[in-house]
């Protein structure tokens, strides 16, 4: 290959090869116009560090961006997750999932009637109360809910506070809503209390507490039942109690307060019989003694 020297600088020379390339080569005392046969080509300087700098900066930015995305999504999703569930049973049983803002985020039929009830129903972005109202309306239309029927609500949530707040709020809301349409019984339970009810043997104090919490139905039917355990002392109380218990037994048998009363009563009865016998003897003795003393006096 022959190269024609086109331009000379102290550091390098520009040559033109026969293929038409212009090259920068080491200037070995070339003169312009000279044709040379061997050249030492200049190597292109690399500028790697600058690239690396940009990359490092990009990594930092990418990491920061990723963190931002994570933070933002987690904040946004925090309100969207299921926070609590309401199981509504008429006969159709459905589960309504709500988030922290009481917006319904999920609706599922538990049994086949429940699936039928929610078929084609759009719950998105609706309030819990609204969804319940509308579902109840649908149940009435489809003939599941009728005069004198029963609605059971079971609340399930991480926080007990939510359950306590909503067991009252939901009931009163449904009562209010159904007041003009139908008269139905509304029963509210929550998962924890239900399990307590099964496992823990009931003492009188606890039964009182339990009644106020989950026994809305019973209190609605018979509000006079509550003071019963407190009044269980003395002869006069005993007589009243007995009559109450007998009336109550016909309406609802097998609930804890009644059992405790029944036990108490039986004990009391046995004891009283025993006492009566003793007292009869004593009284005889006393009477005789008294008579004696009276005689003395």
């Amino acid at each position: 290959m022959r190269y024609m020297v086109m331009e000379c600088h102290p550091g390098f020379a520009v040559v033109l090869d026969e293929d038409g390339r212009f090259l920068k080569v080491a200037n070995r005392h070339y003169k312009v116009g000279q044709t040379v046969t061997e050249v030492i080509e200049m190597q292109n300087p690399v500028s790697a560090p600058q690239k690396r700098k940009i990359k490092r900066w990009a990594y930092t930015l990418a990491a920061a961006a990723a963190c931002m995305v994570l933070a933002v999504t987690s904040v946004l999703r925090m309100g969207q997750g299921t926070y609590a569930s309401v199981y509504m049973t008429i006969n159709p049983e459905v589960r309504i999932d709500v988030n922290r803002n009481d917006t319904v985020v999920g609706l599922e039929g538990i049994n086949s009637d429940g699936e039928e009830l929610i078929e084609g129903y759009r719950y998105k972005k609706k309030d819990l109360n609204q969804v319940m109202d509308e579902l109840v309306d649908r149940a009435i239309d489809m003939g599941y809910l009728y005069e004198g029927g029963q609605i059971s609500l079971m609340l399930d949530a991480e926080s007990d506070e939510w359950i306590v707040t909503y067991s009252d709020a939901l009931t009163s809301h449904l009562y209010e809503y159904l007041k003009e349409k139908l008269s139905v019984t509304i029963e509210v339970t929550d998962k924890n209390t239900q399990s307590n009810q099964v496992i823990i043997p009931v003492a009188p104090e606890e039964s009182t507490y339990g009644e106020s919490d989950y026994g809305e139905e019973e209190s609605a039917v018979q509000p006079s039942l509550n003071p019963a355990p407190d009044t269980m002392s003395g002869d006069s109380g005993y007589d009243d109690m007995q009559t109450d218990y007998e009336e109550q037994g016909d309406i609802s048998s097998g609930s804890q307060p009644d059992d405790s009363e029944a036990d108490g009563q039986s004990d009391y009865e046995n004891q009283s019989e025993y006492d009566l016998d003793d007292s009869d003897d004593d009284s005889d003795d006393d009477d005789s003694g008294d008579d004696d003393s009276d005689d003395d006096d």
Partner: protein
Amino acid sequence: MQNGHPITKAVYEAKKDLQKADDLIRDYIPFIRSEASKCISKLCTEQDDEFSIAMIAFHEAILGYERGRGTFLGYASMVIHSRIIDYRRKESRHQGHVSLYAESGEGDRTVMDEMADERDHYEESANLEATRQEIEELAAVMAGFGISFSDVSDNSPKQERTLEACSSAIRYASENSHLLNELLRTKKLPLAQLAAGSGVERKTLERHRKYILAMLLIQTNGYEIIRGHLRHILKRKGGMPV
């Protein structure tokens, strides 16, 4: 610390301005020679190849230097050493052989020249002056377009395929002399017509604009010697001379 150093500033200016780069190199010739001498473990004269290599290595160092790479002179010294080592390694393959192009004692003449027809050599030396005049003329015309040979060499296609594409565009132009006349008249590259006529991507031509311009100027009248030198470019297509 390095930002304030006058040589760093000078190097950054020399990156953009070729004249300043030349001045800088001229100022540092003693440094360059001393570095070359250190590397070859003997006194380096300006006649040695190593000196030329050290000079171009210094020029490379100017272009490649960045502030993050330490002091300039340290960097330049490193580049000079590496280039000389590269060169010596390459040359070591030819040890014990005499190159046909090696100088054979008598000045510019090579072994090849001595073996070949003497008349060719003389003719060439006679042509040297004419060639020089032609090149100077071309350089003046190119200066009118605002480019120098250094610019063209930076802009020259490196890859074989790109070079071939550019060559076909240049061939097309040389076949259609009205394009060359138009170029001289309007001082504008007829890129659209070149791309359409030669079937080369316009983007490729655009990228090597300065190179195409220089080559087209060579194809205009008056540069017979250079055109004679570039015999390959016009013969390429199917081996048929145009």
